[in-house]
């Protein structure tokens, strides 16, 4: 951007909230930019002014700072008692000016055209916050446990020791398959056991994609929980019980803005 007036013609969006007041939240945005609300239709968008280009950098410290700033703004909005709900935007959501509209006008246009959905979503997450729960298991522990438990394994192992090389190979393959099946069975059992422990402690819960990797601990459950502000005690107690069990590790994070419980799509193209 070379022209000065074009430098800040776009609006970086942090979230939508439920107050139609025009408020400044101070210079707490990405890069110390002034964060303020653009009200429309009983709602407002929390934004800062920025050039019409995405935030991108090779400098990880800089990026880290941006992501934290984004999170801080969401925290501030959630802390403000005059707002009771927040619909978070993802990093780098930037509204640009249109051919015959400024970016601010575009923000208002979007709020108005999506008002119904936005209000519905805001109501759903009113005075609530999100917590992340990830339960991982130690694959070595699980494997040992399975093998120690089973007569089938013992007899197959014995056969391997006693057989000729060709037959032993087949038994080894059989053992491998048996082991994999057992691990899956046992994992599924733990998944439903833990899920059934956790789910009753929160009003709303969502299963996120599990992401397996060859790391030390593997993911068993990945959950997002929507909880009334600060009321995570019961959830925390259950998680502590799971975390203390041998072979399992729990990561309990939050509070986050309700990212996983707000679904709003943009209006259809009206171009």
């Amino acid at each position: 951007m070379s022209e000065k007036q074009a430098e800040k013609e776009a609006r970086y969006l942090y979230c939508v909230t439920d107050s139609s007041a025009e408020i400044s939240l101070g210079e707490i945005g990405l890069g110390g930019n002034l964060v303020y609300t653009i009200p429309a239709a009983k709602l407002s968008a929390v934004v800062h002014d920025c050039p019409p280009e995405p935030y991108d950098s090779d400098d990880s410290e800089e990026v880290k700072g941006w992501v934290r700033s984004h999170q801080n703004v969401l925290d501030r909005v959630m802390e403000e008692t005059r707002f009771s709900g927040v619909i978070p935007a993802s990093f780098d959501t930037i509204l640009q000016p249109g051919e015959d509209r400024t970016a601010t006008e575009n923000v208002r246009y979007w709020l108005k055209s999506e008002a119904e959905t936005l209000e519905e979503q805001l109501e759903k997450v009113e005075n609530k916050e999100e917590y992340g729960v990830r339960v991982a298991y130690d694959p070595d522990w699980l494997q040992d446990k399975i093998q120690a438990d089973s007569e089938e394994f013992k007899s197959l192992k014995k056969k391997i020791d006693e057989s000729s090389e060709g037959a032993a190979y087949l038994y080894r393959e059989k053992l491998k398959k048996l082991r994999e099946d057992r691990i899956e069975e046992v994992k599924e059992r733990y998944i439903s056991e833990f899920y059934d422990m956790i789910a009753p402690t929160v009003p709303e819960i969502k299963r996120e994609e599990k992401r397996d990797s060859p790391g030390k601990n593997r993911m068993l459950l990945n959950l997002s929980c929507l909880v009334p502000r600060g009321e995570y005690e019961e959830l925390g107690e259950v998680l502590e019980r799971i975390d203390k069990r041998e072979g399992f590790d729990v990561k309990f994070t939050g509070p986050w803005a309700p990212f996983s419980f707000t679904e709003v799509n943009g209006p259809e193209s009206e171009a």
Partner: protein
Amino acid sequence: MEPERDEVVDLLDRILEKGVVLNSDLIITLADVPLIGIDLRLALAGIDRMLDYGLFQDWEEAHKALDQAEDDVSDIEI
């Protein structure tokens, strides 16, 4: 058990992948959004940690991404 706030992984899961979606007429779009997402993750979380948590959904994709990004970020820690 008390929740923690310093889990970069969880923050990124949310900030980079979730949140309100706007029509592309209104917003600045990136041709290579997923790639930028991966770069940001690598830069922020460090490769070892990424692998520990299994952030890559597709292992092959992960290796490709690693090959590309290894030199830049292997020395970054959180």
